[in-house]
């Protein structure tokens, strides 16, 4: 393999090529451009799950909640105070991180499982808060008339902007993964004590990483608000979170492009699904299927090895390694 293809940036190059090739094909259709923007937004949300879950091992069940924080932040400052969407952007990046960091600090000491549950709590509380914050969030009615971005006021421009942001996020993410911090996060995920011995302040590092991933969700929320120009209590709910987690897991949460692939796949699937009520059944079924067949997702699985292993089954032992060494 040539060095270029093995570089950490190769997947990003691939994505750029695919988007560039696709753009002229869909440029004429508002329907497809609109869906393309949605795929990009969901890609960002799924990337946020990929960072938290795939890298740091924290299963966040609240990507949409963090997205909603970003979306409402920008909606409120642009509609109620007439500020620039760029102010909204700053808030959309900052506020989710400000919520996520202390939450993670309070809860992840050594096990990420409680934090996953806490994200579920956050989702529920936030939905309640949005409904109750009538003066600020518009309550059940929501906020409409959010101004489109002046520098991207057509669907085509939104398409370019949102995919551009995906590429930028991917670039930053790839760099971060391949740095001392990224390696420390991976170690901390696998073995917090090992990471501690490497000199890592594990809770602080995981919390920062979780906060960064929340910012990425906030960015997605910002795009979402300005793309749809409406934000309500039913826009970015826990069900969206579930879908997003599913996207990341199906595509391969620990890989760069997995979440993007998952977002594209599920968004397209949703377009062709019959009724909204049955979506959960199909999504849930797909999730279970993927977990059973390839728990690391489509792009995270070494398919050659998997097929080889199927033919060489080993006897089951009873969790020996898990207890070994800590006793």
């Amino acid at each position, binding site marked *: 393999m040539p060095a270029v293809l093995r570089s950490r940036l190769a997947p990003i190059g691939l994505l750029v090529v695919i988007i560039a090739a696709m753009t002229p094909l869909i440029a004429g259709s508002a329907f497809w451009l609109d869906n393309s923007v949605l795929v990009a937004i969901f890609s960002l949300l799924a990337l946020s799950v990929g960072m938290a879950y795939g890298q740091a091992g924290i299963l966040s069940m609240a990507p949409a909640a963090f997205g909603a924080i970003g979306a409402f932040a920008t909606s409120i400052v642009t509609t109620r105070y007439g500020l620039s969407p760029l102010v909204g952007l700053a808030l959309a990046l900052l506020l989710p991180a400000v919520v996520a960091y202390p939450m993670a600090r309070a809860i992840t000491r050594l096990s990420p499982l*409680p934090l996953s549950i806490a994200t579920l709590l956050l989702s529920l*509380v936030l939905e309640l808060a949005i409904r109750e914050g009538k003066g600020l969030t518009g309550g059940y009615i929501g906020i409409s008339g959010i101004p489109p971005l002046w520098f991207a006021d057509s669907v085509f421009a939104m398409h370019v902007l949102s995919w551009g942001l995906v590429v930028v996020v991917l670039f930053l993410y790839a760099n971060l993964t391949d740095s001392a911090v990224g390696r420390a996060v991976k170690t901390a995920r696998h073995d917090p004590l090992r990471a501690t011995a490497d000199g890592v302040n594990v809770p602080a590092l995981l919390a920062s990483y979780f906060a960064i991933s929340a910012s990425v969700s906030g960015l997605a929320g910002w795009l979402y608000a300005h793309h749809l120009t409406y934000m309500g209590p039913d826009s970015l709910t826990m069900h969206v979170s579930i879908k997003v*987690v599913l996207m990341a897991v199906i595509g391969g949460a620990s890989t760069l492009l997995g979440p993007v692939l998952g977002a594209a796949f599920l968004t397209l699937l949703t377009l062709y699904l019959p009724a909204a009520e049955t979506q959960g059944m199909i999504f849930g079924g797909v999730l279970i299927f993927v977990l059973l067949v390839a728990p690391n997702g489509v792009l995270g699985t070494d398919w050659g090895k998997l097929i080889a292993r199927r033919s060489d089954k080993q006897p089951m032992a009873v969790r020996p390694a898990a207890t070994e060494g800590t006793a």
Partner: protein
Amino acid sequence: MYELVEYLLRGALLGITYGLLAFPVSLLFSTTGSVDVALGAYAVLAVAVAYSIGGPVGILAAILATVFASFVVGIISLRLNRPGAVDHVTAVLGTFGLAMFLESLILSVFGTNPMIRQPFDTFWNIGGIRISPQTGINAAVCLVILTALFVVLRKTPFGRSMRASAANPVGASLNGIPVRQIWFATYLLGGLLAGVAGVLILYTTGADYSSAFTLTIWGFGSAIIFGMNSPLRGFAGGLIIGMVQALCSGYLPGAWATAIPLVVIFVVLSMGRMNQIVSTGGRV
């Protein structure tokens, strides 16, 4: 004053069902180290089945349905928790998938209508406090179940094996206990209890398709308040959460009633109730 007592009693009535959900949470966590997010969905499934069929047959069908659902989750979790690859978060994700599936199934079959049956329109009046006879039924059912569980766990070989697998899985398998089968049975027992809880919920507060995750949270919260390792504590935790909820809805406006107990659970989580492990004995 009467009002307060009435709220507390109403909360206890609700809390009993949470306590029932708390038990499988703590049982599963201590036996397998995992959390079954689908527990709330089982309960709603039970609500839906019992509601649509009705009567004792409906109750039976409801419980069968939940046991079947937990059977599926048990199989998935055993597949995911392979030796050398025990990943609790992945297992949780699996139960998440099933929860989604059930929620959507209930939505498509039963719609968005709240499902509730309140067979009693009379109240017992005890010293000026009005209590629904359902309270008595809930309390009696819980007492029976708690006693049965106590007997099964403390007095039967199966319960002994279960506790042994929880305390020391490797040791248990060295003593000829089929630990994986026991884990599986734990999932089934969880489904059964969630089914019973669901039936009681149908006759108490009712539920709709969207209650699944909230119920899971209540069960989970009840289980962690006093520590994960005893059903009795989970039951007490359930009562506390139910009472906090009832008091909030009595004295606070609107959504606070739901939010405050959530915040309580959050605080309990941040006190590290689930993190009492790791460097035991100092050998690293």
